[in-house]
């Protein structure tokens, strides 16, 4: 079955304007009668909640942290892209669009990406006006830097804390609306299911994490801004609580899940150091602007890096991709690191690492410049590893970081369930099979500030307000489902902890559905997951009660959904008979080991529809047409 993305007709540059012209709007006096539920308060959720409330809609914002300011967008380090072309190096909306389509390995929807590039400039204006302390040049104008995968300087940044500053901007805008009465916050409340009634999203069921109370909430529309699912691998750069539950539950209620196999493995993370490792730490990709990546030429060379002469080092990215060198896109840099480590040339304990060396940059620019640019990152590296990267090269290794897959949405950011909108990392829309650096912040804020408020209003304008009643039988039924699940988790009283199961699942996925995938490996994983899931439901040990703060219970619910979701992810990876972006199938590569796309057979978005627990999901395809950017083999050589 073919899916319609509802892309407006007309030339690419006019689509968004014509869409906005066609969308109906709600009269200002009527807006307070509509309630919108926003789940998640990261960049996408907070910016959407603030903007919807500014326009006069009533917003209920739900999040599982104690404060809305703690969402994981806060951890984004490097920056945010925009086509301002301040450095006058030839950047433009067209170029940002082309880079993003190409960076995504031709698996994103052209119209969405074009709109993203068009909106990028307004985001910078908005954030600067909010008081986001962007880096400046000495003339007081905004500074830009370059970032992996592109050749222009279009990345705006606030030291190594761009995500934090943008999130605080959105959070403050939202808190202003809390003060004005337009936004009601529901902290420490986790969405555990979606309520669909009469063919549309009508509300959610949440668990109050402090009291354990499960309550249903009704609204005229539901917005999911619940982030990505990289924690399915257990070890990732995501915050510990990041999970797939909200989007996976929505999938079970009828929203199609698109491209779950598109996961981004980030090349510059600190390698695993201990068997008790709980998460992986990302070192900003901006480090690749000045650092040179290398491994010894000889396998098993255990000499300290300082004793390996230049002639015996392999600067493999510079060698393989002379044009982009150390700035090759993330998927390519990650896979190249895996390759050299698989050859036995990896460095550090366990041989799972490569060097990121600043010696040449320090020689050329001086230590002071490097300190200014990356001081906080070097300090962070030192605290974690005990090593001084000014003296000895950093060791880095790829780690799961971002997930391009997500709930399928049309051009209006609405899922296949009417009234259910999905924004930010939680949707699938803009990054194709690989996201470029500094594009996640751009997309989250474009969705939240500038797209959703229009398209959601257009949806509401065609309906009468429903009020906040939860009388429909669906609310009771979904609440009962949620409570039964909780009781099942508490009732198992097995002998293994939630984390033990999660680690086992994560290792399996990392091995079989990580940086390189094979049909055989994916089939192994698909065989193993159901058995492991059964062991989980029988053997998990969740102590305590459902009447108070119970962090083990929270985790158990999230891991239970990861088990189901992992199967979907592997199924998607197995069905996609090509290599593209973050999805590398070993069966599909060129003789020199580069990804081989199959545009003729695989040039589509794979959107999966839930059927039943015992049945395989149904695959729907949204064909992708490339009219503005001709299909080419991505080359960074």
């Amino acid at each position, binding site marked *: 079955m073919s899916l319609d993305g509802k892309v407006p007709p007309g030339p690419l540059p006019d689509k968004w304007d014509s869409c906005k012209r066609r969308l109906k709007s709600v009269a200002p006096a009527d807006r307070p009668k509509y309630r919108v539920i926003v789940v998640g308060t990261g960049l996408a959720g907070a910016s959407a909640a603030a903007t919807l409330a500014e326009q006069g809609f009533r917003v209920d914002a739900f999040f599982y942290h104690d404060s809305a300011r703690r969402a994981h967008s806060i951890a984004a380090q490097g920056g945010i892209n925009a086509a301002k072309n301040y450095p006058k190096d030839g950047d433009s909306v067209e170029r940002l669009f082309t880079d993003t389509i190409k960076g995504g390995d031709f698996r994103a929807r052209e119209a969405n990406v074009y709109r993203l590039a068009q909106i990028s400039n307004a985001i910078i204006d908005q954030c600067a006006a909010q008081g986001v*302390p962007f880096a*400046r040049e000495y003339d007081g104008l905004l500074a830009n830097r370059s970032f992996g995968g592109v050749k222009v300087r279009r990345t705006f940044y606030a030291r190594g804390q761009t995500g934090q500053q943008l999130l605080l901007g959105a959070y403050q805008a939202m808190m202003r609306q809390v003060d004005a009465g337009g936004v009601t916050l529901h902290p420490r409340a986790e969405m555990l299911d979606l309520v669909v009634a009469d063919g549309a999203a009508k509300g959610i069921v949440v668990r109050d994490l402090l009291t354990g109370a499960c309550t249903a909430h009704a609204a005229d529309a539901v917005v999911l801004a619940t982030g990505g699912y990289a924690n399915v691998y257990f070890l990732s750069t995501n915050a510990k609580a990041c999970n797939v539950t909200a989007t996976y539950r929505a999938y079970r209620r009828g929203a199609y899940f698109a491209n779950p196999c598109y996961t981004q493995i980030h090349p510059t993370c600190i390698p695993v150091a201990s068997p008790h490792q709980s998460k992986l730490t990302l070192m900003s990709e901006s480090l690749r602007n000045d650092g040179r990546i290398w491994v010894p030429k000889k396998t098993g060379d255990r000499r300290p890096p300082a004793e390996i002469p230049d002639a015996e080092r392999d600067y493999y990215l510079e060698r393989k991709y002379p044009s982009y060198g150390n700035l090759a896109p993330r998927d390519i840099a990650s896979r190249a690191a895996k390759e050299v480590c698989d050859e036995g040339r990896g460095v550090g304990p366990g041989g799972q690492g490569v060097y990121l060396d600043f010696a040449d940059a320090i020689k050329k620019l001086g230590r002071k410049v490097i300190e200014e640019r990356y001081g906080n990152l070097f300090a962070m590296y030192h605290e*974690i590893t*005990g090593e001084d990267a000014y003296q000895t090269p950093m060791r880095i290794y790829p780690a799961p970081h971002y997930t391009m897959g997500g709930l399928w949405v049309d051009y209006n950011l609405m899922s296949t369930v009417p009234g259910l909108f999905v924004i930010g990392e939680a949707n699938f829309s803009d990054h194709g099979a690989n996201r470029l650096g500094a594009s996640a912040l751009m997309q989250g804020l474009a969705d939240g500030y500038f797209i959703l408020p229009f398209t959601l209003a257009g949806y509401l304008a065609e309906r009468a307000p429903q009020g906040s009643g939860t009388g429909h039988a669906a609310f009771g039924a979904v609440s009962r489902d949620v409570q039964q699940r909780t009781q099942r988790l508490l009732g198992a009283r097995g002998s293994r902890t939630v984390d033990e199961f999660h680690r086992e699942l994560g290792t399996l996925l990392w091995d079989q559905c990580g940086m390189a995938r094979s049909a055989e490996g994916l089939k192994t994983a698909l065989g193993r997951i159901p058995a492991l899931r059964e062991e989980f439901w029988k053997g998990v040990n969740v102590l305590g009660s459902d009447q108070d*703060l119970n962090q083990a219970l929270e985790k158990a619910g999230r891991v239970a959904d990861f088990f189901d979701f992992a199967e979907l992810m592997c199924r998607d990876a197995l069905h996609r008979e090509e290599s593209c972006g973050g999805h590398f199938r070993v069966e599909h590569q060129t003789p020199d080991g580069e990804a081989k796309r199959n545009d003729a057979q695989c040039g589509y978005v794979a959107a999966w529809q839930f059927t039943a627990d015992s049945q395989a999901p149904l695959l729907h395809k949204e064909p992708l047409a490339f009219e503005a950017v001709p299909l080419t083999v991505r080359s960074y050589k």
Partner: protein
Amino acid sequence: MRLTLRVWRQKSAADPGRFETYEAKEIGPDLSFLELLDVVNEDLQRRGIEPIAFDHDCREGICGSCAMMINGCAHGSRLASRDSRDGPEPAVATCQLYLRHFKDGDVITIEPWRAKAFPVVKDLVVNRSAFDRIITAGGYVSVNTGEAPEANSIPVPKQRADEAMDAAACIGCGACVAACPNASAMLFVAAKISHLAMLPQGQAERAKRALSMVEQMDKEGFGNCTNHYECMTACPKEIHVKVIAHMNREYLAGRI
């Protein structure tokens, strides 16, 4: 290495709470402090004891969730800076503290933030919503989406932007309150007032912002500053107490 932990356990706000002692064996110096708690919690659960509740999330020192007193010192930050002779050592949040700063056989006391305005929820988890209410009172620039002028139409001197960024780096963890003998929130409040007062975008609401945020701070039951500077020492983002002087000027200027 082997460590002994004295951990504050408290079932709920109403429960009086007590210290419990747990042993952590066969752990290495490369573990983070929170991974130490993970290991202890795994062990407790295997023994049928409810795990220690503690707030944490990003585990890279930016979300501001983790919050605990370690040997009487907020985030244990000072334990890391004590060892800073061998290289660049940042101030840290609990999640960025590594066990290499401890010795085999150490006894470590772990408590929640102690402040009237941060009531204990459970074990090491406290309620910091007072901070959110202070921001709600005025910690923002009133600009609706779409109203912003072209970003480069208002230049900001680099030094000014850098200073604003120094203050804006606050992660809202509450260590300043926990470290202060008066449980004062002045460093937190001042960081936001100072950040926005330093930028041209923050000028229009400058006086009103300082007054309303300070008023809310007082309402929440935080103490006053008596210049101990403990807040600055504990702050994982090294926010300088000079922002408090800045806030006082802003407040005074707003009053007259």
